[in-house]
């Protein structure tokens, strides 16, 4: 890996936004393919951030700040990506905090990070009724839906969304992933979700996996 890519990762992980943005520009200017900057540079940093989160070394303020840097670095790379003739059309993803729930910190971090791996993210916000999610699915035809619930009393809404998708005949057209503090893999399996992640970086990995399978 080039020294520049390494210093990009280091800058993101140490929350040095100025350096991160500068290095991203330098990488582009040096002629590196935009996809490679995203995949080798940022995705690696994302995985390292996930590891640090799991062992408690990175905490919420760092993860939120890092997510912001990810977003702004991707914005630098984006025009170059769009300008390419053979570029692949971005997959769409819808994310939302379910009805009855106002917690959106985690969902926002996941949204910011998903954007950096090339997904077109539509954030429907918090306390989102199931009908609104179904409408958005019909209109945007996303490949993926991410549903966040932070209360044991709002978790059943994740199941309700999946049921509503089935009733609307949309279930097979879209992958559903679930997350939030009380949510577990077991719960995800029980309600028939396609994916689950315990933290934001992992969610991005799962999102990529699901959209690629769907492709």
């Amino acid at each position, binding site marked *: 890996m080039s020294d520049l890519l390494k210093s990009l990762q280091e800058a993101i992980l140490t929350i040095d936004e100025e350096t991160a943005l500068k290095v991203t520009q330098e990488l582009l200017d040096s002629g590196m393919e935009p996809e490679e900057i995203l995949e080798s540079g940022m995705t690696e940093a994302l995985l390292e951030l996930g590891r640090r989160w799991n*062992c*408690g*070394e990175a*905490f919420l*303020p760092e993860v939120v700040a890092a997510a912001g840097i990810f977003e702004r670095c991707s914005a630098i790379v984006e025009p170059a990506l769009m300008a390419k003739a053979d570029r692949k059309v971005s997959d769409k993803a819808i994310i939302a905090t379910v*009805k009855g729930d106002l917690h959106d*910190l985690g969902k926002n971090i996941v949204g910011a990070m998903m954007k950096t791996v090339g997904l077109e993210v539509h954030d429907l916000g918090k306390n989102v009724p199931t009908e609104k999610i179904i409408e958005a699915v019909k209109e945007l035809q996303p490949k993926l839906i991410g549903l966040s619930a932070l209360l044991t*009393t*709002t978790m059943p809404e994740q199941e309700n969304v999946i049921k509503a998708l089935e009733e609307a005949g949309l279930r097979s057209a879209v992958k559903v992933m679930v997350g939030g503090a009380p949510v577990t893999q077991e719960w995800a399996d029980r309600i028939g979700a396609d994916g689950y992640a315990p933290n934001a970086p992992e969610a991005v990995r799962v999102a990529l996996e699901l959209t690629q399978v769907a492709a």
Partner: protein
Amino acid sequence: MTGEVQVTFLPEGLISEVSRGTTLFVAAHWVDLPIDSTCGGVGTCGRCRVRLNDFEFPIHPVDQEWLTPVELSEGWRIACRAEADRSLECWVPEPMQMPLSAIAGTGRAVAVEPAVKKLLVALTVEDPEDKSSVEQQLRKALAGAGLGSVKISQHLAFQVGDLLRTSGPDVTLTVCDEHLVDVEPRETSDRCLGLAIDLGTTTVVGSLIDLAKGEILAEKSLLNRQSVFGADVISRIAYTTASDTRRLEMQIAALETLNQLAIELADEAGIDERQIYQVVVVGNPTMLHLLLGIDAHPIAVEPFVTTFSSEQDLEAAELKLAIHPGARVQTLPFIGAYVGADTVGGLHATDVLRADELRLFVDVGTNSEIVLGSSDGAWACSAPAGPAFEGGRIRNGMMASEGAIRRVKLGEQVKLDVVGDQAPRGICGSGLIQAIAELGRVGLLAPSGLLYRPEEVPEHPLVSRLIQIDEVRAFQLAEEVVLTQVDIREVQAAKGAISTGISVLLETAGLGLEDIHEVLLAGSFGSAIDPWSARALGLVPWVDLERIQSVGNAALEGAKMALMSFRERQIARGISSKVQYVELSAMPDFNNRYLMELSFPLEQGT
């Protein structure tokens, strides 16, 4: 605050600011002015007469019962019926007798004037000429005692006839507020008990009180039997939402806990639990919904509201409580969906709303209640701190039972204080908080919450205690007990919620840290934390240490006061309308505020 009126009591000139519609009787309690009364302010004794400067003040039917037309025209009214719909002045006669007093709350003298009263009366059952029904006999006896309008409890209506036929003429009537709860043969006025209960999510504490003397006979705590359905309020609600059967199951678990508590307390005091005539229960809104079998689901989803919020008053038989079947079971009101009757009790016991100085009341727990207030106004919020303080989601976390590290002191060595004086098995909330504060003090932890690596502090006397477990940094407290970096993050997340709550309340009130006269740490856990550690972690704001007070189980104290004195209960009932509830989760910039509050202030050195 809007809707407040001023009542000035003469001759002392005491001014009581109360919400519009408060009775003059209750307004007098707010300024500790004892207006004469035997019925407790339910409009049946006619003794709480006051004279208003406003002769046109509306006349209540009860006024006509007790006052002559001349008195009415002179402005006399019955204080417990007269609702202050405007600011006014009234003159209060001297009370007839000063009641007994007891010490309760934070060392305050409470006049012992229970709502439960026993009256020895002579009936005329054996008079062959008297053809009046048993009910009429009772009514006559009650009217003779100035209690003409009390309601006869349902359970009595069916059995009292038999009792009276066999009892002889002398009977003791037991009245609680406006209910006749018992009729017993002969004189029994020495047996009159009440039960104060703090129905906590985890722990339930009860205090058995001799209401005639204002004496505490026994106190005890038990684990809430609902715990098997989930550790926190949200999971309890989630369990009950599935079906009505489950809601009933949850209610029965609460009632069984209370029954066990009542029986054990009665055993300890050597009395019969069926002599308990009144129960005052405090608890968070979820606990009281579940106790009464009322749907709690709205509490747990946006917009987070309770089904009911006012004080409840039920007959024990309705709840199948194993005390006197006619006993009144009474609750205190709620301030918001997560700030309940326990906080109302705590505020009452500590007199936060009647003191001139601004105080910050913090009850640290899974849901931490925070109130900022004084006699000028008050604001409350609830901070979802999570289970960390009760040892939940902490690697070696446990309750404060045998083997739990409860105190930690770091120096050249690690000094531990363990519950039950045995080998440490885990760490409880107070130990956890002190351990983190101590790590910061001796320079092994950064304010960001990150533990240093051994190579960063090679000369430190405790460097060998800094270890790694599966890539996770940790500090070895004892052979079997470690504190990991992930544990510290859990505590930080909890601390962040509380700090955010405090800063939001200060901002809402337009006040600053320098305005806080005193910080009160309440609750069984809150008062177990040492003030220095609480401040080092930022659980309380940075004020002088002597301004941080532990006030113990203030919720229970408040319930005891409400039980010992109907006046205190009325004051407590008025608290909820004086406190403004602030919903943190609905704040648009909550996330950013929360992120700003996650670091520890810490204090280095000795």
